[in-house]
């Protein structure tokens, strides 16, 4: 390869310096405000002209910083890599291999939406927040996503550019009403709300000072907000669509996020069934992708609809046909009283599925091809009852545990599972899924 990069280097959107300058200015203003009286005395001593000049200098310095950091940030797409070159004093070059791509996210925060820009993030194991391309023009971000995915899939550069956005087919759209109802029916949200109301009242009653109540209320409000309204805002208009370059997730009311998970990247699928949802036969589906932060696939949907989406993520897996087998009654009830009934395990030719929990039932499904290592562990109490646990480790730093299996079954499972993951790895699709 030539010393100079062949691919043309590009810069981020010219809006970027504004956003980079904004953060330090806000921080400075914040520090001054926090200093309070002393800063006030200081400012009072200065004449009006001097004040304006100081403000101007501040804006100029940080504006210059923003401009320079934008000027010195370049990115380029080569056949195999996305290269990001950045830094004025401390140079940093990141080469992100496209065939190791786990997911692509395009996010449009509220402010960025107003100005028509978006940020693009490649999820590869080990990437930092720094490797986010913020900001790009909205059209450019979408085109770049399509190009990156096409190149990662193994198309030639000419094809990749010409291919453009792959057509998508909608699989599922969650109505805002369903999300609101599902949140109202989750115990965690209800508990947060109850805590948020009761704690300040309790503090007021104890200290008989309304100010103390307000002081406790403020942080509580943050938590309650994140658990209820915040979740509603991010899960609003949740759309799952399928396209040749992967599964598309679009969601958000104020901040819009567009995530793409290429085929064959999902390490674990988790089906969550909270207690109050069971009458409506609703489930929530979460997924684990190595190096990615997104973990929700479907915030709420009927079981059939959710299974239909999962069948796209794990092709050829029939979830309804999984035969779950509970833990043996005789020993388990002494090891984990009452809750032992929640543990169950199903192994099919394609997946290892373990279930746990009684109130909120969670089923974790790992394709055999994604298993990194298998472990068997057995404590003294379990051994006395003839039981053992089997753990399956996946690449997304997750471990799926099948607890309380009969000891001989577990020993057999350990070796059978190692053999299964070896053979299904051999038939797994390549990293470049179009080749």
């Amino acid at each position, binding site marked *: 390869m030539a010393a100079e990069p062949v691919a043309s280097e590009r810069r981020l959107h010219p809006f970027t310096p504004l956003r980079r300058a904004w953060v330090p200015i806000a921080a400075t203003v914040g520090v001054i405000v926090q200093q309070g009286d002393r800063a006030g005395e200081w400012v009072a001593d200065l004449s009006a002209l001097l004040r304006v000049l100081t403000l101007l200098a501040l804006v100029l310095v940080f504006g210059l910083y923003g401009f320079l950091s934008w000027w010195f940030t370049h990115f380029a797409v080569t056949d195999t890599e996305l290269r990001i070159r950045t830094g004025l004093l401390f140079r940093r070059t990141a080469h992100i291999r496209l065939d190791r791509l*786990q997911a692509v996210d395009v996010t449009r925060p509220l402010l960025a939406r107003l100005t028509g820009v978006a940020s693009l993030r490649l999820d590869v*194991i080990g990437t930092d927040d720094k490797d986010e391309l913020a900001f790009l023009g909205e059209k450019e971000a979408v085109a770049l996503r399509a190009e990156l995915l096409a190149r990662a899939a193994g198309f030639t550069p000419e094809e990749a550019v010409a291919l453009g956005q792959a057509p998508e087919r909608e699989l599922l759209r969650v109505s805002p009403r369903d999300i609101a109802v599902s949140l109202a029916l989750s115990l965690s949200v209800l508990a947060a709300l109850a805590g948020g109301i009761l704690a300040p009242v309790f503090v007021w009653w104890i200290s008989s000072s309304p100010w103390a109540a307000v002081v406790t209320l403020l942080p509580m409000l943050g938590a309650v907000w994140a658990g209820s309204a915040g979740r509603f805002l991010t899960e609003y208009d949740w759309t799952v669509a399928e396209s040749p370059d992967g599964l598309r997730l679009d969601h958000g009311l104020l901040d819009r996020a567009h995530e793409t998970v290429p085929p064959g*990247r999902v*390490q674990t699928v988790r089906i969550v069934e909270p207690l109050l949802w069971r009458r409506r036969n609703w489930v929530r589906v979460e997924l684990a992708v*190595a190096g990615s932060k997104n973990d929700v696939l479907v915030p709420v949907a009927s079981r059939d609809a959710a299974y239909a989406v999962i069948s796209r993520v794990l092709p050829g897996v029939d979830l309804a046909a999984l035969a779950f087998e509970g833990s043996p009654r005789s020993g388990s009830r002494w090891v984990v009283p009452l809750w032992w009934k929640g543990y169950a395990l199903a192994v099919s030719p394609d997946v290892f599925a373990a279930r746990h929990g009684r109130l909120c039932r969670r089923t974790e499904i790992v394709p055999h091809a*994604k298993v*990194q*290592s*298998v*472990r*068997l*562990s*057995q*404590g*003294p109490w379990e*051994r006395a009852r003839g039981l053992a646990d089997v*753990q399956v*480790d*996946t*690449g997304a*730093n*997750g*471990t799926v545990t099948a607890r309380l299996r009969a000891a001989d079954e577990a020993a057999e499972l*350990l*070796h059978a*599972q*190692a*053999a299964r*993951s*070896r053979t299904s*790895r*051999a038939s*797994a699709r*390549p*990293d470049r899924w179009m080749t």
Partner: protein
Amino acid sequence: METGTTGGTGGPEWVGLPGGLLTLRRLLLVIWMTLLAAVTAVVLGLAVGPAWAAVGGFWLAVLAWGWVLMGRNWRSWRYAERPDDLLISRGVLWREQTVVPYGRMQLVEVTSGPLERRFGLASVQLHTAAAATDAKIPGLVPAEAERLRDRLTALGEARSAGL
């Protein structure tokens, strides 16, 4: 290329650890416990009364208990190289068995601290893409550790697979 142990289809061929690790651990235990016993006996004997010096005997009991425990723990460690994966088994009360397929290994590490080197010991640690995989074989003879490392990397390359 030669692949795997020609052990047939029977059970895995388990290999235990060499005695060096047990000697090292027991030696450390004896040194520390006798030191603690001596200090406790002297301090209590001088400060409270000569009869109290017997409390130092507590550490000797710990020593005896630890001596037996270490022997059992050392005996419980064993590993087996199978045609396609490595098996590690350990633990007396809390037993654990780990299977790591060769194709999943990302990195094989041989480490040896100053004390371990003095006793001619080295550890082999296997890393996969999952951080939860804790496949470590401590207290091997350096030559065996290196042989294992080279064999595992060769087998890993032959069977390598992505995530």
